């Protein structure tokens, strides 16, 4: 079955890729996919608990968007945050250790799957409540704006990427922040991963105008839709938006049309999405599509890709070993981190 609205087509020729770039994008997507597959395995083996939301299928969005950033830029995520963390550079072992609840995890085992944080890598957090990260991300962008405009710090050109879903786009915080971001021209990009579902709620049943990118216009902001299964399309749109944000020209809404290949979380029976829908979207697997393209274009070789597959598999295995070997947080540290000194 075709998706409920026609997908925008991206002319890949407009984004020439070097082989290094192509491999970097490929590696990041494969890392995301492999990491999540490993999580599922570990979850079913009782190594991690709670709600675990995997990202399979949406890799082109994380990679396409985040891999345009500098290390000092910010990313804000949701409960579906593993892969955003990885794309932003948080080491896989730190993420895996967090999922195992270990003291070596990026949130010291206190956060868990829905609460990944890394000050070092500019990850503002995984926010477990729908839409609550949007204002926080807006605040990080405001901080850049503040340093530039109130403190005259000309080096203040960091960009904040704020990720959330179609379901979140019906929440008031989204609109409140669109307004403030546009009003003050904050350097933020709202990346909406429209995977058509909010748990069991089909997007078209939850919203009166399903084209989320169109809400941007109501706030005088640029809004674009992109094929969220095409890493190059996402990258091209984000590059443009990042450019706009960096030079103080304000925010952008990017709606990426995508799909998750698994249930909402590992606890979700996933009974409502039709088989034909799933098949349609699976056939557009962003990793396979990208691999085919870069091979066809002769930008990379199959050997290059295989080497990456191999490398990533080792990395993910290493992450599991690290997580398993890591210590639990010390019981006497239960009250650590409540107050800062």
């Amino acid at each position, binding site marked *: 079955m075709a998706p409920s609205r026609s997908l925008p087509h991206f002319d890949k020729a407009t984004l020439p890729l070097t082989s290094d770039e192509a491999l970097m994008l490929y590696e990041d997507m494969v890392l995301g996919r492999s990491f999540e597959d490993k999580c599922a395995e570990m979850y079913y083996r009782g190594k991690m*608990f*709670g*709600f675990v939301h995997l990202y399979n299928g949406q890799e082109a969005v994380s990679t396409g968007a985040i891999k345009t950033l500098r290390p000092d830029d910010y990313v804000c995520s949701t409960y579906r945050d593993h892969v955003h963390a990885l794309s932003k550079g948080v080491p896989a072992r730190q993420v895996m250790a*967090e999922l195992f*609840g*270990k003291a070596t995890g990026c*949130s010291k*085992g*206190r*956060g*868990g*799957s*829905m*609460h990944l944080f890394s000050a070092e890598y500019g990850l503002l957090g995984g926010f*477990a*409540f*729908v*839409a*609550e990260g949007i204002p926080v991300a807006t605040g990080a962008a405001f901080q850049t704006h503040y340093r530039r405009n109130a403190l005259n710090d000309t080096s203040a050109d960091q960009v904040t990427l704020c990720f959330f879903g179609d*379901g*979140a786009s*019906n*929440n*008031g915080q989204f609109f409140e922040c669109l307004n403030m971001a546009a009003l003050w021209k904050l350097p933020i990009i709202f990346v909406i991963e429209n995977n058509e579902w*909010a*748990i*069991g*709620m089909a997007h078209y*049943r*939850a*919203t009166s105008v399903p084209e989320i990118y169109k809400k941007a216009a109501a706030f005088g902001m640029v809004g674009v839709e992109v094929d969220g299964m095409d890493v190059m399309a996402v990258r091209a749109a984000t590059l443009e938006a990042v450019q706009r944000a960096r030079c103080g020209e304000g925010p952008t809404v990017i709606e990426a049309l995508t799909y998750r290949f698994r249930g909402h979380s590992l606890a979700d029976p996933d009974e*409502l999405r039709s088989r034909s829908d799933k098949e349609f979207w699976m056939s557009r697997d962003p990793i396979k599509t990208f691999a085919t393209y870069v091979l066809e274009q002769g930008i990379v070789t199959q050997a290059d890709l295989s080497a990456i597959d191999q490398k990533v598999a080792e990395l993910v295995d290493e992450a599991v070993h690290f997580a398993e070997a890591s210590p*639990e*947080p010390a*019981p006497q540290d*239960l*009250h650590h981190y*409540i107050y800062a000194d």
Partner: protein
Amino acid sequence: MAEMLLFNALRAAIDEEMERDPTVFVLGEDVGHYGGSYKVTKDLYLKYGDVRILDTPIAENSFTGMAVGAAMTGLRPIIEGMNMGFLLLAFNQISNNAGMLRYTSGGNFKVPMVIRGPGGVGRQLGAEHSQRLEAYFQAVPGLKIVACSTPKNAKGLLKAAIRDNNPVLFFEHVLLYNLKEEIPPGDYVQALDRAELVRPGQEVTILTYSRMRYHCLHAVKALEEKGYDPEIIDLISLRPFDMETIGASVRKTHRVLIVEECMRTGGIGAELSAAITERFFDELDAPVVRLSSQDVPTPYNGALEKLTVVQPEQIIEAVEKLVHGQV
């Protein structure tokens, strides 16, 4: 009598009340086609349609306010908080409008609505999904706050809450949905404002609610073997307290242990302890003791999480100390 799982008992309560009264309806996230995250409304949309089992967008504050408006004009909404924590976003609508509007309007309107869903600390769900909102909401005037704990009381209390003409915050516990129990057939209600005497005893009054009822029962088993005779009371109503039942017990045992899952500071136990001390000071042989969760956001790590929440061993120890005058 038929055995029923707690989530099905809740479902039965809703189903029966919706049949009985066409103004009763359910709204919330994924209550319809998905059947509710804990299956409490499973397939009810097939019977009642998409308007009476209303799947909402993720807009807690507004759909709660919408329920207030619907209640003011004659309907009886049941809001499902997919997780009660999400209703932090609806705090203003719950306090100002659900809670206070009847008073502020000088009695012009009543707001018969139920706000129900899973609360409490589950299994490694992380800080935000492990809220105990009863502590945050207990001071809101005009609200009734109830916590169910067994399939039987879940059904009877929910039916009573739906029929009540006031806003009722109705807490289920994320770890109790699969409890199984024989429950009476057909229609019955349980008073919202009465505590349940779970186990009569002479030496100490254990006041608890929701999931901690089971930790107390667990502890009491061990205590019985050691020859102790504690009384367990399940509060059921967290606002207002059933001070009659509580008072009768205190006058008998002269010692009180509160076992709660909310954090110690500003928890349910705080008000309860203060209220008991005020009224029954001369009856008390020892200070009211609170066993509460630690004052920390619930950590994800399983061992830390366990340390955060009261465990049966602590109850055993506290009872022994209380009885031996070591408090």
